[in-house]
């Protein structure tokens, strides 16, 4: 019954890298602003100052908005933002943390947090990115097979021995159908055994007819 909870540092690392990205972006803006102060571009200084003010104002708005939404949240923040297509693909990929669920349905009922674990989140994120790059479903699934092996897929790819799993029930159905048809043909052509014993009286026949009529009507 134990299902491992495997929330690792992946998401934290992702957040950290996003923070670095934002820092670099800010650094870039500052560098551009410093360049704008050069003597050779003195004529452009008022323009640059205006641009800088616009940037600062925009950043201020963004931070203010972030602060307000975090303090008084109006709309929920989704931990894993995926498109419908990515979610569907996620349901075809196993979450390899050992929970036995797919990445799209991963939940850990016995764990402190019963949402998708970090393994599932990382997979969904990758799927989302690949969907964003315009890759087809087949290409995305194949990429996961190459990375994790065939166990990455919730349904084994239809090749090699796996064909057995896909075709076996239908082969059995075919064989069974053939047998049923054969049995029916044999049974239909089996000669009826003539009734032994004395002939049936007219009275009994009439009684039987009435009984059959009653039975048929009642049923």
């Amino acid at each position, binding site marked *: 019954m134990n299902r491992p909870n495997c929330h690792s540092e992946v998401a934290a690392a992702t957040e950290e890298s996003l923070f670095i990205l934002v820092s670099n972006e800010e650094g870039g803006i500052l560098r551009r602003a410093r360049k704008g102060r050069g003597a050779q571009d003195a004529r452009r200084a008022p323009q640059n100052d205006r641009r800088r003010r616009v940037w600062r104002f925009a950043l201020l708005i963004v931070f203010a908005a972030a602060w307000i939404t975090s303090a008084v949240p109006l709309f929920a923040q989704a931990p894993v933002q995926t498109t419908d297509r990515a979610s569907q693909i996620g349901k075809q990929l196993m979450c390899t943390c050992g929970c036995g669920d797919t990445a799209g*349905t991963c939940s850990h009922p016995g764990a402190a947090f019963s949402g*998708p674990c970090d393994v599932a989140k990382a997979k969904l994120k990758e799927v989302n990115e690949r969907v964003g790059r315009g890759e087809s479903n087949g290409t995305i699934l194949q990429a996961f097979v190459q990375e994790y*092996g065939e166990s990455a897929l919730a349904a084994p790819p239809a090749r090699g021995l796996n064909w057995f*799993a896909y075709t076996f*029930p239908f082969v059995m159905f075919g064989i069974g159908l053939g047998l049923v048809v054969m049995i029916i043909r044999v049974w239909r052509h*089996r000669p009826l055994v003539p009734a032994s014993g004395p002939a049936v009286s007219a*009275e009994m026949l009439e009684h039987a007819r009435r009984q059959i009529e009653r039975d048929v*009507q009642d049923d």
Partner: protein
Amino acid sequence: MDLFGSFALLLAFLCGLYAFGGGIAAIITRRPLLIKSARNAGMAVCVLIWIGFGSLAYLFQTDNFSMAYVVEHSNRTLPAFFKFAAIWAGQEGSLLFWSFLLSIYVFSVLFAYRGKHPELMPYVGVVTVGVQLFFLTLNNFIASPFQILGSAAPSGAMQWIMRGDGNGLNPLLQYPEMVIHPPILYSGYTGFTIPFAFALGALLGRYPGEKWIHLTRRWTMIAWGFQGVGILLGAHWAYAVLGWGGYWMWDPVENASLMPWLTGTAFLHSVMMQEKRGMMRVWNVWLVFTTFLLTIFGTFLTRSGVVNSVHAFAQSKIGPYFLGFIGLVLLVCLVSYWRNRDYLRSDNTLDSLVSRESSFLFNNLILLVACVAVISGTLFPVLSEWVRGTKISVGVPFFNMINLPIALFLLFLTGVGPLLAWRKTSMASLRKNFGGPLMVGIVAGIVGMAMGLRNFYVVMCLILSVFVTLTILLEFYRGARVIASRGNSNLFSAVGQLTMRNTRRYGGYVVHFGIVLIFIGISGTAFNQDKQAEMPPGAQMTIGPYRLTHQTFDSTDLSNYKSERATIAVDRGGKQIIMLYPEKRFYPSNQESGTMVAIYSTLREDLYVVYAGHSPETNQPVIHAYLNPLVKWIWFGGAVMVLGTLLALVPNRQPMLALRTAVEPARGTAGLSPSPAPVQRYDGHD
């Protein structure tokens, strides 16, 4: 009390050995006293098992923490209700519980048929005691629930230990449904032992005619009904407790419970051919054997660790014993069949391809193919690893892909089969019975497509559901109309009379209608939606037509667990409709958590809200909302199936009439030979 229980089980084992050996001797010698003695010993085995089970229940209720099994699965603060359920929470207790339920069946059979069927019952007694002996071997020597905690004293001698408290029950099992789901499912599993014992007994004893079928019909239906309800309760437990938004994930343990149900369903249908026409004797005997073997195989899957499963018990060394038992039973069945195959010879003749008999053959074929599909999918990862050394996953998409077409074909046969006449059905009858329902079904499918349904399976399910429902309704209508016209009663009371005249037939139709409702419910899966978001108090989320507002968040500390609960206001179209309280519980005794899902259920859809806990990244509460259309239809369909099964178990109010050939000329009609036979009574079936 621990020694008392352990002693009772050991005595039951010894009594079982006597009942088994004595039963065989009684069959050989035909001595009435020995037959009676073996039967009484068999009944004593059952009583001793009850005592053993009662002892374990007592140990749980009295918090006897000197017992390893009690320590492992209970604690002082566990409510008495769950202390009872804790009996079957682990391997050892669940095996004793299996023995306990089996003993109820065995005792009932031995008691009900005491002094009757002297040619058959000794065999039945030997087979049932043989099965009990296997489980008693496990209960006594392999997985005893009465093991005492001990440690080595400095002197080297073992001394008993009494722990202050236990580890507690798995939180996933602390749910009221878990108290009734395992007993009902196990009642299904163990119940199939009875038809198996009668079939094997009749074969070994070459018991004449179809009597064993008549004797076991109700036992089979009871076991089948329990198995079906157990499966549905398990699905409902998974839905309401596991918190992943679904009810069936083709988990190996779920599959293990489905397999015997499928073959049992096939048997319930094909047995009618044997009763009505004396056909398919070999087939029916093997269906019963297979069903029983699958119940043992399912138990093997659950307990051996061969396949990974969320429900499975901890891996143990118990697997080889089950495999050995399966092998032994199979061998006994094969040898018995081979030695007595001439006894099963039947006069199989068929008048037409389009007949009730043919439809049963196809029905059996489809049910067995469905069973094969489930078995092959469940075991394929093991096969793949064995052959190629590569581990693969066989999950929900695979099973859905394989089983959906099979299931729809079965649904089609559910509509067609009952309306075909025995022996031969004419084209005119086909047109009359199926023309209208089929046309209405197709029109419903077209309307569905016009309304936006695009999924092929959903459209097919809609067409077939309408078709099957109409054929069932027409059957009731036609019969009731005849009765109403004869008896000057209204149509509704005529439906009641009709049903009570042939409960098995009309109960069967009610079961079929329940199946239709379940199919409709399952088809809703194609439109499932879900959304997960961090929702601190005040946050909102929209899913489908519903807007969820997280109002407050509270936590409580109870004796058995700590709870964190979100209060979610749900409104639709600006109007508040309900408050939901999804909850997360933490059980300090075993350091595990559990989810209490909040569900707003309507016939149209379920709004299923899970409080997943605090996000590990932001520490904000996370709410996972699902919109699952038509789920309620599944549970409603299950209830209808239970109703139909119960109806089919009720004896006919007006017995069916049948002509039997008179053995001797009736008094006063010496001139007529043979005379019109006296109309004899027998239980109706169709």
